């Protein structure tokens, strides 16, 4: 029982962590929490659903098509909405993303209606695979672990060694200096949004496979992923994933002990932790200089 709770908590936590990474990537480069993140993932999942059910594409084609759509969606939102804003404040950008959230949610509701649908995903929660004798995991869990590990390694390599990754880090540290060095900062921003949208869509499809698909389904996971990201410290990507894992485990164990308080226990824990450590567990605390 204990191992089951632990593994399930870890798996859900990894999913939160993955989605939190999507939030953190945008926060790292542009200092804005993207409230439309959940709805971007939701829309991408709906697109996957639509091309699989309405056009009858197999999963292997629909999956990359959806990821491509997610990248384009992220870049489109950056280019159409965030870029034209003149000298935006952080609050202004935040309101922009909230506006985008309402817009996307409305579009999805308009197109697909509010009724709940089952998302046909390749990996099922109900099918178990025996990894080694006497120890079985369901496909979904394995998929989450593999995906999170792969994304983490790729992100690490990307930020460490690729030219684009280094440009992104430079933009984050000092936008003006990066511009002087010949980095096209605006292009970096739209690529960041595309990347974040891609990771968000991946995580959203996993969430949809676990629950149901409707225009609101990403609201709660987004809140939790955001909380996980804050817990780990928004600026540290491994911290975000660890935050997600802690959140997943806490929630699962408390949920087993007191099922009725499951939805909020994570938030109570997080409020307590960030009151003690205001910048999250793993980020360097940044002291504002005058």
């Amino acid at each position: 029982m204990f191992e089951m709770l632990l593994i399930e908590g870890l798996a859900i936590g990894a999913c939160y962590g993955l989605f939190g990474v999507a939030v953190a990537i945008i926060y790292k480069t542009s200092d804005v929490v993207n409230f439309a993140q959940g709805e971007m993932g939701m829309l991408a999942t709906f697109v996957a659903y639509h091309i699989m059910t309405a056009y009858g594409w197999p999963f292997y084609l629909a999956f990359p098509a959806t990821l491509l759509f997610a990248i384009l969606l992220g870049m489109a939102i950056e280019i159409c909405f965030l870029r034209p804003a003149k000298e935006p404040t952080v609050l202004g950008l935040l309101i922009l993303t909230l506006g985008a959230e309402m817009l996307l949610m409305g579009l999805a509701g308009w197109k697909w209606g509010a009724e709940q649908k089952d998302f046909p995903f390749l990996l099922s929660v109900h099918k178990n695979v025996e990894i080694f004798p006497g120890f079985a995991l369901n496909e979904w869990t394995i998929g989450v672990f593999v995906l999170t590990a792969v994304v983490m390694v790729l992100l690490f390599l990307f930020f460490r060694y690729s030219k684009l990754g280094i440009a992104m880090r430079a933009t984050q540290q000092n936008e003006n200096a990066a511009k002087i060095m010949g980095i096209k900062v605006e292009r970096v921003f739209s690529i960041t949004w595309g990347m974040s949208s891609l990771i968000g869509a991946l995580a959203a499809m996993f969430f949809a496979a676990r629950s149901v698909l409707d225009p609101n389904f990403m609201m709660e996971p987004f809140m939790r992923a955001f909380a996980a990201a804050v817990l780990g410290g928004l600026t540290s990507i491994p911290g975000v994933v660890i935050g997600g894992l802690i959140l997943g485990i806490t929630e699962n164990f408390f949920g087993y002990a007191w099922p009725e308080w499951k939805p909020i226990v994570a938030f109570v824990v997080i409020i307590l932790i960030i009151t003690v450590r205001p910048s999250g567990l793993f980020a360097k605390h940044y002291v504002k200089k005058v």
Partner: protein
Amino acid sequence: MGAYGTSLIMMHLHFPFPVAIILAALIAALLGFVIGLPALRLEGPYLAIATLGFGLTIMHVIGRWEIFGGRMGITAPPLDLGIPGSAWSLVLKGDVQIYYLILVIAVLLVIGARNLMKTRVGRAFMSIRDDDIAAEVMGVNLTIFKTMSFAVSAFYAGIAGGLYGFVVSFFDPFSFNLILSILFLVMVVVGGLGSVLGAIMGAVLITYLQYDLLKNVENLPYLGGLLVAVSKQWFTVIGLANFSGIALGLIMIAIVIFEPLGMFGIWIRIKKYWKTWPF
């Protein structure tokens, strides 16, 4: 909190309405003070998640607690301005009567807010908003004024909630959800951030859009027919009810891009234009 507080105090303790709503607002203010405590150390997204978490927690606690009616919600008692059950009883019935009561309270509170912003406390609030470190250096006590701003804001929200409870006459914890908070934010942004007058203008406009104009999109002149046709072609007609979300989202985006100060900004520009007119 305000809605629950007012209704419960009136139902169980049999207090008259004015006492009940002020008590409920004070309870809300106390809660705001508690939420303001971690706010002293947090900023930006960290503060956002803390307030969101508090909101969810309170919603859930109310949903679980018997006295609050649980998930089923409660029905507001009759709105009685006098002392219930005595000769002084004055029950307000119908939307029009309640409207006048709310109008009076709203005007009083707006005058209160405007005056508050002109006092020492209001100036302290503004200086903290502009730059908290500079404010602290000038001798503004951050601890007191930051928590106080949360408490004052919660007091206002408490009164608003208390009145809202009577307007809808039935509510459950999920009536006061995140979407409602976002809607309030839209109102403030559309009206103009940091201005009491702007907030009212925004509230009027958005409420009109939300509850009147966009409720029956199909019946709009010109646009309605077009939208139904578009829905039939590419979308679903049932889902057209979601159009208000799309419209509000677009309004928010447009305001930030084109007019960051909102309607209040437009108003200031017009005023300036006429003041300096031939030039």
